[in-house]
Protein backbone atom coordinates (compact mmCIF):
# COMPACT_ATOMS: atom_id res chain seq x y z
CA UNK A 1 0.00 0.00 0.00
CA UNK A 2 2.67 2.47 0.92
CA UNK A 3 4.68 1.38 -2.10
CA UNK A 4 1.78 2.57 -4.23
CA UNK A 5 1.80 5.84 -2.34
CA UNK A 6 5.49 6.24 -3.14
CA UNK A 7 4.94 5.51 -6.80
CA UNK A 8 2.23 8.14 -6.94
CA UNK A 9 4.40 10.76 -5.33
CA UNK A 10 7.47 9.96 -7.40
CA UNK A 11 6.19 8.59 -10.71
CA UNK A 12 9.47 9.14 -12.53
CA UNK A 13 11.44 6.92 -10.21
CA UNK A 14 9.30 3.94 -11.03
CA UNK A 15 8.90 4.40 -14.75
CA UNK A 16 12.54 4.77 -15.67
CA UNK A 17 14.85 1.79 -15.80
CA UNK A 18 18.38 0.67 -16.49
CA UNK A 19 21.10 3.27 -16.84
CA UNK A 20 18.64 6.13 -16.86
CA UNK A 21 17.92 5.58 -13.17
CA UNK A 22 19.26 8.58 -11.33
CA UNK A 23 20.67 8.11 -7.83
CA UNK A 24 17.54 9.81 -6.50
CA UNK A 25 15.37 7.22 -8.23
CA UNK A 26 17.32 4.46 -6.58
CA UNK A 27 16.83 6.11 -3.18
CA UNK A 28 13.09 6.41 -3.68
CA UNK A 29 12.79 2.81 -4.78
CA UNK A 30 14.79 1.56 -1.84
CA UNK A 31 12.73 3.68 0.52
CA UNK A 32 9.52 2.27 -0.86
CA UNK A 33 10.54 -1.26 0.02
CA UNK A 34 12.13 -0.64 3.38
CA UNK A 35 9.63 -1.77 6.01
CA UNK A 36 11.36 -0.04 8.90
CA UNK A 37 11.44 3.29 7.15
CA UNK A 38 7.84 3.08 6.03
CA UNK A 39 6.58 2.04 9.45
CA UNK A 40 8.49 4.85 11.11
CA UNK A 41 7.26 7.35 8.57
CA UNK A 42 3.62 6.38 8.96
CA UNK A 43 3.81 6.28 12.74
CA UNK A 44 5.58 9.61 12.95
CA UNK A 45 3.11 11.12 10.54
CA UNK A 46 0.23 9.99 12.72
CA UNK A 47 1.87 11.39 15.82
CA UNK A 48 2.54 14.73 14.19
CA UNK A 49 -1.06 14.94 13.06
CA UNK A 50 -2.16 14.18 16.61
CA UNK A 51 0.17 16.80 17.98
CA UNK A 52 -0.92 19.51 15.60
CA UNK A 53 -4.65 18.86 15.36
CA UNK A 54 -5.33 16.72 18.40
CA UNK A 55 -5.72 19.40 21.03
CA UNK A 56 -8.19 21.24 18.79
CA UNK A 57 -10.35 18.19 18.32
CA UNK A 58 -10.57 17.01 21.90
CA UNK A 59 -13.37 18.57 23.90
CA UNK A 60 -11.31 19.42 26.96
CA UNK A 61 -8.22 21.58 27.29
CA UNK A 62 -5.13 20.35 29.06
CA UNK A 63 -5.49 23.00 31.73
CA UNK A 64 -9.13 22.83 32.86
CA UNK A 65 -9.20 21.57 36.38
CA UNK A 66 -12.22 19.82 37.81
CA UNK A 67 -11.52 18.65 41.30
CA UNK A 68 -14.69 16.62 41.41
CA UNK A 69 -13.37 14.38 38.69
CA UNK A 70 -9.92 13.61 40.00
CA UNK A 71 -8.02 10.44 39.12
CA UNK A 72 -10.63 8.92 36.86
CA UNK A 73 -9.31 5.80 35.17
CA UNK A 74 -9.19 5.35 31.38
CA UNK A 75 -12.33 4.19 29.64
CA UNK A 76 -11.33 0.50 29.51
CA UNK A 77 -10.95 0.23 33.28
CA UNK A 78 -14.00 -0.01 35.55
CA UNK A 79 -15.07 3.44 36.55
CA UNK A 80 -13.91 5.12 33.35
CA UNK A 81 -16.10 7.22 31.12
CA UNK A 82 -16.03 8.17 27.46
CA UNK A 83 -16.02 11.78 28.53
CA UNK A 84 -12.40 11.37 29.57
CA UNK A 85 -11.10 8.62 27.33
CA UNK A 86 -7.75 8.38 29.01
CA UNK A 87 -8.91 9.37 32.45
CA UNK A 88 -7.91 12.38 34.50
CA UNK A 89 -4.94 13.33 36.59
CA UNK A 90 -4.70 14.40 40.20
CA UNK A 91 -6.21 17.81 39.43
CA UNK A 92 -9.06 16.56 37.33
CA UNK A 93 -7.46 17.59 34.06
CA UNK A 94 -8.27 15.48 31.00
CA UNK A 95 -5.36 13.16 30.36
CA UNK A 96 -5.89 12.72 26.64
CA UNK A 97 -5.73 16.46 26.13
CA UNK A 98 -2.60 16.71 28.24
CA UNK A 99 -0.88 13.91 26.39
CA UNK A 100 -1.73 15.36 22.98
CA UNK A 101 -0.47 18.75 24.02
CA UNK A 102 2.67 17.16 25.41
CA UNK A 103 3.44 15.83 21.96
CA UNK A 104 3.86 19.39 20.74
CA UNK A 105 6.36 20.13 23.50
CA UNK A 106 8.39 17.04 22.75
CA UNK A 107 8.48 17.70 19.04
CA UNK A 108 9.39 21.36 19.40
CA UNK A 109 12.15 20.66 21.91
CA UNK A 110 13.40 17.66 19.97
CA UNK A 111 13.66 19.45 16.65
CA UNK A 112 14.93 22.66 18.18
CA UNK A 113 17.65 21.12 20.30
CA UNK A 114 18.81 18.78 17.55
CA UNK A 115 19.06 21.74 15.19
CA UNK A 116 21.18 23.70 17.66
CA UNK A 117 23.46 20.72 18.14
CA UNK A 118 23.63 20.15 14.39
CA UNK A 119 24.70 23.67 13.59
CA UNK A 120 27.48 23.59 16.17
CA UNK A 121 28.65 20.07 15.44
CA UNK A 122 28.58 20.26 11.66
CA UNK A 123 30.40 23.58 11.53
CA UNK A 124 33.14 22.37 13.84
CA UNK A 125 33.30 19.02 12.09
CA UNK A 126 33.66 20.54 8.63
CA UNK A 127 36.38 22.90 9.72
CA UNK A 128 38.40 20.39 11.70
CA UNK A 129 37.92 17.55 9.23
CA UNK A 130 38.80 19.57 6.15
CA UNK A 131 41.57 21.79 7.47
CA UNK A 132 43.09 19.61 10.16
CA UNK A 133 46.13 21.05 11.87
CA UNK A 134 45.68 23.29 14.86
CA UNK A 135 41.95 23.62 14.21
CA UNK A 136 41.63 19.89 14.65
CA UNK A 137 43.62 19.96 17.88
CA UNK A 138 41.51 22.78 19.24
CA UNK A 139 38.28 21.04 18.34
CA UNK A 140 39.57 17.81 19.88
CA UNK A 141 40.20 19.67 23.08
CA UNK A 142 36.68 21.12 23.02
CA UNK A 143 35.29 17.68 22.31
CA UNK A 144 37.06 16.10 25.26
CA UNK A 145 35.82 18.89 27.52
CA UNK A 146 32.29 18.35 26.32
CA UNK A 147 32.42 14.57 26.73
CA UNK A 148 33.89 14.77 30.21
CA UNK A 149 31.14 17.06 31.42
CA UNK A 150 28.32 15.27 33.17
CA UNK A 151 25.69 16.48 30.71
CA UNK A 152 22.52 15.88 32.63
CA UNK A 153 23.92 17.50 35.75
CA UNK A 154 25.06 20.54 33.86
CA UNK A 155 21.73 20.87 32.11
CA UNK A 156 19.96 20.68 35.42
CA UNK A 157 22.26 23.25 36.93
CA UNK A 158 21.96 25.73 34.10
CA UNK A 159 18.21 25.43 33.80
CA UNK A 160 17.88 25.77 37.53
CA UNK A 161 20.07 28.84 37.61
CA UNK A 162 18.75 30.70 34.61
CA UNK A 163 15.18 29.70 34.99
CA UNK A 164 13.22 27.06 33.14
CA UNK A 165 11.68 28.22 29.92
CA UNK A 166 11.19 26.49 26.60
CA UNK A 167 13.97 28.41 24.91
CA UNK A 168 16.44 27.77 27.71
CA UNK A 169 15.68 24.07 27.68
CA UNK A 170 16.09 23.86 23.92
CA UNK A 171 19.38 25.74 23.95
CA UNK A 172 20.85 23.88 26.90
CA UNK A 173 20.01 20.45 25.49
CA UNK A 174 21.25 21.51 22.07
CA UNK A 175 24.55 22.87 23.34
CA UNK A 176 25.18 19.64 25.23
CA UNK A 177 24.48 17.36 22.26
CA UNK A 178 26.69 18.35 19.38
CA UNK A 179 29.44 15.79 19.83
CA UNK A 180 28.00 13.08 17.63
CA UNK A 181 27.45 15.56 14.82
CA UNK A 182 31.06 16.65 15.16
CA UNK A 183 32.53 13.17 15.14
CA UNK A 184 30.55 11.96 12.16
CA UNK A 185 31.03 15.15 10.13
CA UNK A 186 34.73 15.24 10.89
CA UNK A 187 35.38 11.63 9.90
CA UNK A 188 33.39 12.06 6.71
CA UNK A 189 35.06 15.37 5.86
CA UNK A 190 38.48 13.82 6.33
CA UNK A 191 37.63 10.98 3.99
CA UNK A 192 36.07 13.21 1.37
CA UNK A 193 38.99 15.60 1.46
CA UNK A 194 41.26 12.90 0.05
CA UNK A 195 39.05 12.16 -2.92
CA UNK A 196 40.05 13.32 -6.37
CA UNK A 197 37.02 15.51 -7.03
CA UNK A 198 38.14 17.82 -4.25
CA UNK A 199 41.56 18.16 -5.86
CA UNK A 200 39.82 18.70 -9.20
CA UNK A 201 37.71 21.47 -7.70
CA UNK A 202 40.83 23.14 -6.35
CA UNK A 203 42.45 22.78 -9.74
CA UNK A 204 39.63 24.56 -11.55
CA UNK A 205 39.94 27.46 -9.15
CA UNK A 206 37.08 26.95 -6.72
CA UNK A 207 37.48 28.81 -3.43
CA UNK A 208 37.72 26.91 -0.16
CA UNK A 209 34.29 28.11 0.87
CA UNK A 210 32.79 26.87 -2.39
CA UNK A 211 34.48 23.50 -1.99
CA UNK A 212 33.27 23.07 1.58
CA UNK A 213 29.70 24.02 0.81
CA UNK A 214 29.29 22.50 -2.63
CA UNK A 215 31.53 19.43 -2.61
CA UNK A 216 32.13 18.31 0.95
CA UNK A 217 28.86 19.12 2.67
CA UNK A 218 26.44 17.58 0.14
CA UNK A 219 28.34 14.32 0.25
CA UNK A 220 28.00 13.92 3.97
CA UNK A 221 24.43 15.10 4.36
CA UNK A 222 23.15 11.54 4.31
CA UNK A 223 25.11 10.58 7.38
CA UNK A 224 24.26 13.84 9.09
CA UNK A 225 20.57 13.23 8.50
CA UNK A 226 20.79 9.86 10.22
CA UNK A 227 22.50 11.44 13.21
CA UNK A 228 19.90 14.20 13.23
CA UNK A 229 17.07 11.73 13.66
CA UNK A 230 18.96 10.00 16.42
CA UNK A 231 19.58 13.28 18.21
CA UNK A 232 15.96 14.37 17.96
CA UNK A 233 15.09 11.23 19.90
CA UNK A 234 17.87 11.89 22.39
CA UNK A 235 16.72 15.48 22.86
CA UNK A 236 13.12 14.42 23.42
CA UNK A 237 14.21 11.98 26.10
CA UNK A 238 16.57 14.51 27.64
CA UNK A 239 13.77 17.05 27.97
CA UNK A 240 11.56 14.36 29.49
CA UNK A 241 14.28 13.54 32.01
CA UNK A 242 14.79 17.16 32.97
CA UNK A 243 11.06 17.69 33.40
CA UNK A 244 10.80 14.50 35.38
CA UNK A 245 13.42 15.74 37.80
CA UNK A 246 11.71 19.09 38.09
CA UNK A 247 14.33 21.14 36.33
CA UNK A 248 12.80 21.28 32.89
CA UNK A 249 9.45 22.41 31.64
CA UNK A 250 7.42 23.63 34.56
CA UNK A 251 3.78 22.88 35.42
CA UNK A 252 1.09 23.43 34.30
CA UNK A 253 2.57 22.84 30.82
CA UNK A 254 2.02 19.12 30.27
CA UNK A 255 5.44 17.86 29.22
CA UNK A 256 5.34 14.07 29.19
CA UNK A 257 8.23 13.86 31.63
CA UNK A 258 6.35 16.09 34.00
CA UNK A 259 3.24 13.94 33.69
CA UNK A 260 5.24 10.93 34.72
CA UNK A 261 6.72 12.80 37.68
CA UNK A 262 3.28 13.90 38.78
CA UNK A 263 1.98 10.37 38.47
CA UNK A 264 4.89 8.80 40.29
CA UNK A 265 3.31 9.00 43.71
CA UNK A 266 0.19 7.25 42.51
CA UNK A 267 2.32 4.42 41.16
CA UNK A 268 0.48 1.66 42.92
CA UNK A 269 -3.14 2.60 42.41
CA UNK A 270 -3.28 4.66 39.24
CA UNK A 271 -0.45 3.22 37.15
CA UNK A 272 -1.96 4.54 33.91
CA UNK A 273 -0.77 8.01 34.87
CA UNK A 274 2.76 6.78 34.29
CA UNK A 275 2.19 4.13 31.66
CA UNK A 276 0.39 6.28 29.10
CA UNK A 277 2.86 9.17 28.77
CA UNK A 278 5.69 6.63 28.71
CA UNK A 279 4.11 4.79 25.83
CA UNK A 280 3.68 8.09 24.04
CA UNK A 281 7.37 8.91 24.49
CA UNK A 282 8.32 5.45 23.34
CA UNK A 283 6.19 5.60 20.20
CA UNK A 284 7.45 9.01 19.20
CA UNK A 285 11.12 8.21 19.68
CA UNK A 286 10.82 4.76 18.18
CA UNK A 287 9.19 6.09 15.02
CA UNK A 288 11.92 8.69 14.62
CA UNK A 289 14.63 6.10 15.22
CA UNK A 290 13.10 3.68 12.74
CA UNK A 291 13.11 6.38 10.14
CA UNK A 292 16.70 7.18 11.01
CA UNK A 293 17.77 3.56 10.66
CA UNK A 294 15.83 3.38 7.45
CA UNK A 295 17.57 6.44 6.06
CA UNK A 296 20.92 4.91 6.94
CA UNK A 297 20.11 1.68 5.13
CA UNK A 298 18.67 3.47 2.14
CA UNK A 299 21.51 5.90 1.63
CA UNK A 300 24.38 3.57 2.43
CA UNK A 301 25.92 2.47 -0.85
CA UNK A 302 27.02 -0.82 0.59
CA UNK A 303 24.14 -1.56 2.89
CA UNK A 304 24.55 -4.82 4.70
CA UNK A 305 20.88 -5.23 5.49
CA UNK A 306 17.76 -5.62 3.46
CA UNK A 307 19.57 -7.53 0.76
Amino acid at each position, binding site marked *: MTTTAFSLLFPGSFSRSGASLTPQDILVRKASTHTGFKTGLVLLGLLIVCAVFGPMVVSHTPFDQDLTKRLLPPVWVTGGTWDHVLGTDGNGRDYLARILYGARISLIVGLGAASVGAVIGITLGLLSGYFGGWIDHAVNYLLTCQL*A*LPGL*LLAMTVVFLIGPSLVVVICVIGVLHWTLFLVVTRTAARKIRKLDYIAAAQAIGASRREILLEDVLPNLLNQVLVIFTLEVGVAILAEASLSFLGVGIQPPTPSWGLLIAEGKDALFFQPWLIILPGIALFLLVVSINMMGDGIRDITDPESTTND
Partner: protein
Amino acid sequence: MFRFLAGRLMVAAAVAVTLSIVAFFLLNLAVDPAQTIAGEEANALEIEQIRERYGFDRPIAVRYVEWFSNIFKGDFGESYYWHKPVGELVVERLPVTATLALMSICVTVLIAIPLGCAAALKPNSWIDRLSLSVAVSAQAIPNFWLGLMMIILLAVTFPIFPVSGDKSLYHFILPSFVLGASSVPPVMRLMRTGLLDVMNADYIRTTRSKGFFGLRLLTAHAMRNALLPVVSVLAVQLGHKFGGSVITESVFAINGLGRLALESILGADIPTVQMLVFLFALTFLALNLLADLLNAQLDPRLRGQS
Protein backbone atom coordinates in the same frame (compact mmCIF):
# COMPACT_ATOMS: atom_id res chain seq x y z
CA MET B 1 53.85 3.81 23.83
CA PHE B 2 54.68 6.24 26.58
CA ARG B 3 55.04 9.09 24.14
CA PHE B 4 51.55 8.35 22.94
CA LEU B 5 50.13 8.35 26.44
CA ALA B 6 52.05 11.42 27.59
CA GLY B 7 50.24 13.46 24.96
CA ARG B 8 46.86 12.17 26.04
CA LEU B 9 47.69 12.79 29.67
CA MET B 10 48.49 16.40 28.96
CA VAL B 11 45.24 16.93 27.11
CA ALA B 12 43.33 15.25 29.94
CA ALA B 13 44.98 17.47 32.51
CA ALA B 14 44.20 20.57 30.46
CA VAL B 15 40.59 19.48 30.12
CA ALA B 16 40.29 18.75 33.83
CA VAL B 17 41.55 22.20 34.73
CA THR B 18 39.27 23.83 32.16
CA LEU B 19 36.26 22.03 33.53
CA SER B 20 37.08 22.93 37.09
CA ILE B 21 37.18 26.55 36.00
CA VAL B 22 33.90 26.21 34.13
CA ALA B 23 32.17 24.57 37.08
CA PHE B 24 33.46 27.06 39.62
CA PHE B 25 32.81 30.20 37.65
CA LEU B 26 29.44 29.10 36.36
CA LEU B 27 28.12 28.36 39.80
CA ASN B 28 29.70 31.19 41.72
CA LEU B 29 28.73 33.83 39.21
CA ALA B 30 25.14 32.73 38.82
CA VAL B 31 24.33 32.29 42.45
CA ASP B 32 25.30 34.52 45.29
CA PRO B 33 26.76 32.16 47.88
CA ALA B 34 26.27 34.63 50.69
CA GLN B 35 22.58 34.83 49.91
CA THR B 36 22.24 31.07 49.84
CA ILE B 37 23.87 30.60 53.21
CA ALA B 38 21.97 33.44 54.79
CA GLY B 39 18.65 32.06 53.68
CA GLU B 40 15.60 33.70 52.22
CA GLU B 41 14.59 35.93 55.09
CA ALA B 42 17.95 37.47 55.74
CA ASN B 43 18.36 41.18 55.24
CA ALA B 44 21.14 42.99 53.43
CA LEU B 45 23.27 43.50 56.51
CA GLU B 46 23.30 39.84 57.47
CA ILE B 47 24.22 38.90 53.92
CA GLU B 48 27.08 41.39 53.97
CA GLN B 49 28.38 39.96 57.22
CA ILE B 50 28.33 36.46 55.84
CA ARG B 51 30.10 37.64 52.74
CA GLU B 52 32.90 39.07 54.80
CA ARG B 53 33.14 36.13 57.11
CA TYR B 54 33.45 33.54 54.39
CA GLY B 55 35.61 35.71 52.18
CA PHE B 56 33.13 35.98 49.34
CA ASP B 57 34.08 39.58 48.77
CA ARG B 58 37.42 38.59 47.33
CA PRO B 59 37.83 38.46 43.53
CA ILE B 60 36.46 35.30 42.05
CA ALA B 61 39.77 34.27 40.49
CA VAL B 62 41.42 34.26 43.90
CA ARG B 63 38.63 32.17 45.35
CA TYR B 64 39.00 29.73 42.47
CA VAL B 65 42.72 29.28 43.03
CA GLU B 66 42.10 28.74 46.73
CA TRP B 67 39.45 26.12 46.05
CA PHE B 68 41.49 24.33 43.44
CA SER B 69 44.65 24.20 45.51
CA ASN B 70 42.66 22.97 48.48
CA ILE B 71 41.61 19.97 46.49
CA PHE B 72 45.21 18.78 46.37
CA LYS B 73 45.34 19.02 50.15
CA GLY B 74 42.28 16.83 50.34
CA ASP B 75 39.94 19.64 51.32
CA PHE B 76 36.94 19.54 49.01
CA GLY B 77 35.05 22.36 50.61
CA GLU B 78 32.19 22.49 53.04
CA SER B 79 28.58 22.00 52.07
CA TYR B 80 26.22 24.89 52.87
CA TYR B 81 23.30 22.55 52.79
CA TRP B 82 24.35 19.57 54.87
CA HIS B 83 26.93 21.42 56.91
CA LYS B 84 29.45 18.67 56.40
CA PRO B 85 32.70 18.56 54.48
CA VAL B 86 32.01 17.71 50.88
CA GLY B 87 34.72 15.10 51.00
CA GLU B 88 32.82 13.20 53.64
CA LEU B 89 29.61 13.31 51.62
CA VAL B 90 31.41 11.99 48.59
CA VAL B 91 33.20 9.19 50.36
CA GLU B 92 29.96 8.03 51.93
CA ARG B 93 28.24 7.66 48.64
CA LEU B 94 31.01 6.77 46.25
CA PRO B 95 30.91 2.98 46.80
CA VAL B 96 27.20 2.93 46.12
CA THR B 97 27.45 4.67 42.78
CA ALA B 98 30.59 2.75 41.85
CA THR B 99 28.82 -0.55 42.47
CA LEU B 100 25.84 0.57 40.48
CA ALA B 101 28.00 1.76 37.60
CA LEU B 102 30.06 -1.40 37.40
CA MET B 103 27.08 -3.68 37.64
CA SER B 104 25.32 -1.76 34.92
CA ILE B 105 28.28 -2.12 32.57
CA CYS B 106 28.19 -5.86 33.25
CA VAL B 107 24.55 -5.85 32.22
CA THR B 108 25.43 -3.98 29.05
CA VAL B 109 28.21 -6.40 28.17
CA LEU B 110 26.10 -9.46 28.88
CA ILE B 111 23.34 -8.28 26.59
CA ALA B 112 25.04 -6.22 23.91
CA ILE B 113 28.11 -8.29 23.04
CA PRO B 114 26.43 -11.66 22.39
CA LEU B 115 23.54 -10.02 20.56
CA GLY B 116 25.83 -7.91 18.43
CA CYS B 117 28.00 -10.88 17.54
CA ALA B 118 25.06 -13.10 16.68
CA ALA B 119 23.59 -10.38 14.50
CA ALA B 120 26.88 -9.86 12.66
CA LEU B 121 27.44 -13.54 12.02
CA LYS B 122 24.03 -14.07 10.49
CA PRO B 123 23.08 -10.77 8.86
CA ASN B 124 19.44 -10.38 7.87
CA SER B 125 18.43 -13.45 9.84
CA TRP B 126 15.81 -13.44 12.56
CA ILE B 127 18.43 -12.85 15.22
CA ASP B 128 19.74 -9.85 13.35
CA ARG B 129 16.27 -8.37 13.15
CA LEU B 130 15.64 -9.18 16.79
CA SER B 131 18.83 -7.48 17.91
CA LEU B 132 18.01 -4.45 15.80
CA SER B 133 14.54 -4.28 17.36
CA VAL B 134 16.07 -4.52 20.81
CA ALA B 135 18.43 -1.67 19.99
CA VAL B 136 15.75 0.51 18.52
CA SER B 137 13.37 -0.12 21.41
CA ALA B 138 15.95 0.32 24.14
CA GLN B 139 16.94 3.63 22.60
CA ALA B 140 13.39 4.88 22.70
CA ILE B 141 12.46 4.00 26.25
CA PRO B 142 13.02 6.82 28.73
CA ASN B 143 15.12 5.29 31.46
CA PHE B 144 13.14 6.80 34.32
CA TRP B 145 10.01 5.30 32.85
CA LEU B 146 11.71 1.96 32.42
CA GLY B 147 12.69 2.11 36.06
CA LEU B 148 9.15 2.84 37.16
CA MET B 149 7.78 0.13 34.90
CA MET B 150 10.23 -2.38 36.28
CA ILE B 151 9.10 -1.44 39.75
CA ILE B 152 5.45 -1.86 38.83
CA LEU B 153 6.07 -5.19 37.15
CA LEU B 154 8.78 -6.86 39.13
CA ALA B 155 8.38 -5.32 42.53
CA VAL B 156 4.69 -4.67 42.87
CA THR B 157 2.73 -6.98 40.60
CA PHE B 158 5.17 -9.83 41.00
CA PRO B 159 7.19 -8.99 44.08
CA ILE B 160 10.48 -10.49 43.00
CA PHE B 161 12.67 -7.50 43.68
CA PRO B 162 12.58 -4.83 46.36
CA VAL B 163 10.93 -1.58 45.38
CA SER B 164 13.70 0.74 46.40
CA GLY B 165 16.67 1.22 48.62
CA ASP B 166 20.30 0.19 48.51
CA LYS B 167 20.82 -2.07 51.47
CA SER B 168 21.95 -5.20 49.72
CA LEU B 169 23.43 -6.22 46.40
CA TYR B 170 20.05 -7.70 45.53
CA HIS B 171 18.65 -4.20 45.69
CA PHE B 172 21.03 -3.23 42.94
CA ILE B 173 19.87 -5.71 40.35
CA LEU B 174 16.89 -3.81 39.02
CA PRO B 175 18.62 -0.41 38.98
CA SER B 176 21.69 -1.89 37.25
CA PHE B 177 19.48 -3.33 34.58
CA VAL B 178 17.77 -0.01 34.00
CA LEU B 179 21.04 1.93 33.97
CA GLY B 180 22.78 -0.63 31.78
CA ALA B 181 19.94 -0.84 29.29
CA SER B 182 20.62 2.66 28.03
CA SER B 183 24.12 1.68 26.90
CA VAL B 184 23.01 -1.47 25.13
CA PRO B 185 21.99 0.08 21.79
CA PRO B 186 25.25 1.89 20.95
CA VAL B 187 27.48 -0.96 22.16
CA MET B 188 25.41 -3.58 20.37
CA ARG B 189 25.44 -1.68 17.12
CA LEU B 190 29.14 -1.07 17.34
CA MET B 191 29.76 -4.74 18.00
CA ARG B 192 27.58 -5.68 15.08
CA THR B 193 29.10 -3.28 12.56
CA GLY B 194 32.59 -3.89 13.86
CA LEU B 195 32.36 -7.64 13.61
CA LEU B 196 30.61 -7.47 10.26
CA ASP B 197 33.40 -5.31 8.85
CA VAL B 198 36.05 -7.61 10.26
CA MET B 199 34.41 -10.74 8.89
CA ASN B 200 34.42 -9.14 5.45
CA ALA B 201 38.02 -8.01 5.75
CA ASP B 202 40.78 -9.35 3.53
CA TYR B 203 42.78 -10.78 6.39
CA ILE B 204 39.88 -12.89 7.57
CA ARG B 205 39.61 -14.27 4.07
CA THR B 206 43.30 -15.12 4.22
CA THR B 207 42.79 -16.76 7.60
CA ARG B 208 39.89 -18.78 6.24
CA SER B 209 42.01 -19.90 3.30
CA LYS B 210 44.49 -21.26 5.80
CA GLY B 211 41.83 -23.56 7.19
CA PHE B 212 40.36 -21.62 10.12
CA PHE B 213 36.60 -21.70 10.46
CA GLY B 214 33.72 -21.49 12.90
CA LEU B 215 34.28 -20.68 16.54
CA ARG B 216 38.05 -20.78 16.31
CA LEU B 217 38.11 -18.22 13.51
CA LEU B 218 35.80 -16.02 15.49
CA THR B 219 37.52 -16.07 18.83
CA ALA B 220 41.15 -16.25 17.82
CA HIS B 221 41.09 -13.84 14.92
CA ALA B 222 37.91 -11.91 14.35
CA MET B 223 37.01 -10.85 17.87
CA ARG B 224 40.51 -9.57 18.66
CA ASN B 225 40.03 -7.00 15.93
CA ALA B 226 36.33 -6.36 16.35
CA LEU B 227 36.53 -5.70 20.07
CA LEU B 228 39.07 -2.88 19.74
CA PRO B 229 36.58 -0.05 19.29
CA VAL B 230 34.08 -1.68 21.64
CA VAL B 231 36.50 -1.58 24.56
CA SER B 232 36.96 2.18 24.19
CA VAL B 233 33.25 2.78 24.01
CA LEU B 234 32.60 0.65 27.09
CA ALA B 235 35.13 2.70 29.05
CA VAL B 236 33.45 5.91 27.94
CA GLN B 237 30.02 4.54 28.81
CA LEU B 238 31.27 3.57 32.25
CA GLY B 239 32.52 7.10 32.69
CA HIS B 240 29.12 8.46 31.77
CA LYS B 241 27.42 6.28 34.33
CA PHE B 242 28.95 8.26 37.12
CA GLY B 243 27.38 11.51 36.08
CA GLY B 244 24.35 9.88 34.55
CA SER B 245 23.08 7.77 37.42
CA VAL B 246 21.01 10.67 38.77
CA ILE B 247 17.73 9.41 37.42
CA THR B 248 18.18 5.78 38.32
CA GLU B 249 19.23 6.64 41.84
CA SER B 250 16.32 9.01 42.12
CA VAL B 251 13.74 6.48 40.96
CA PHE B 252 15.07 3.64 43.08
CA ALA B 253 15.87 5.81 46.12
CA ILE B 254 19.53 4.87 46.10
CA ASN B 255 21.85 7.07 48.13
CA GLY B 256 24.58 7.52 45.63
CA LEU B 257 26.49 10.44 44.17
CA GLY B 258 23.80 11.08 41.58
CA ARG B 259 21.13 11.66 44.14
CA LEU B 260 23.56 13.82 46.08
CA ALA B 261 24.06 15.92 42.96
CA LEU B 262 20.33 16.34 42.39
CA GLU B 263 19.65 17.41 45.92
CA SER B 264 22.63 19.76 45.92
CA ILE B 265 21.45 21.47 42.77
CA LEU B 266 17.96 21.91 44.08
CA GLY B 267 19.40 23.25 47.28
CA ALA B 268 21.83 25.60 45.52
CA ASP B 269 24.67 23.94 47.41
CA ILE B 270 27.56 25.34 45.37
CA PRO B 271 30.53 23.62 46.99
CA THR B 272 29.03 20.18 46.56
CA VAL B 273 27.86 20.74 43.02
CA GLN B 274 31.15 22.16 41.79
CA MET B 275 33.10 19.37 43.44
CA LEU B 276 30.84 16.70 42.01
CA VAL B 277 31.02 18.12 38.50
CA PHE B 278 34.79 18.17 38.78
CA LEU B 279 34.94 14.64 40.20
CA PHE B 280 32.70 13.22 37.52
CA ALA B 281 34.84 14.86 34.87
CA LEU B 282 37.99 13.42 36.44
CA THR B 283 36.47 9.95 36.55
CA PHE B 284 35.54 10.17 32.91
CA LEU B 285 39.00 11.40 31.91
CA ALA B 286 40.67 8.65 33.90
CA LEU B 287 38.53 5.99 32.28
CA ASN B 288 39.19 7.49 28.87
CA LEU B 289 42.93 7.25 29.48
CA LEU B 290 42.48 3.68 30.60
CA ALA B 291 40.67 2.97 27.37
CA ASP B 292 43.54 4.52 25.40
CA LEU B 293 46.02 2.37 27.29
CA LEU B 294 44.01 -0.77 26.63
CA ASN B 295 43.73 0.14 23.00
CA ALA B 296 47.44 0.63 22.65
CA GLN B 297 48.00 -2.69 24.32
CA LEU B 298 45.61 -4.52 22.04
CA ASP B 299 46.43 -2.80 18.77
CA PRO B 300 50.10 -2.92 17.81
CA ARG B 301 49.64 -0.26 15.17
CA LEU B 302 49.13 2.33 17.87
CA ARG B 303 52.35 1.60 19.62
CA GLY B 304 54.50 3.52 17.19
CA GLN B 305 57.21 2.35 14.85
CA SER B 306 60.17 0.31 15.94
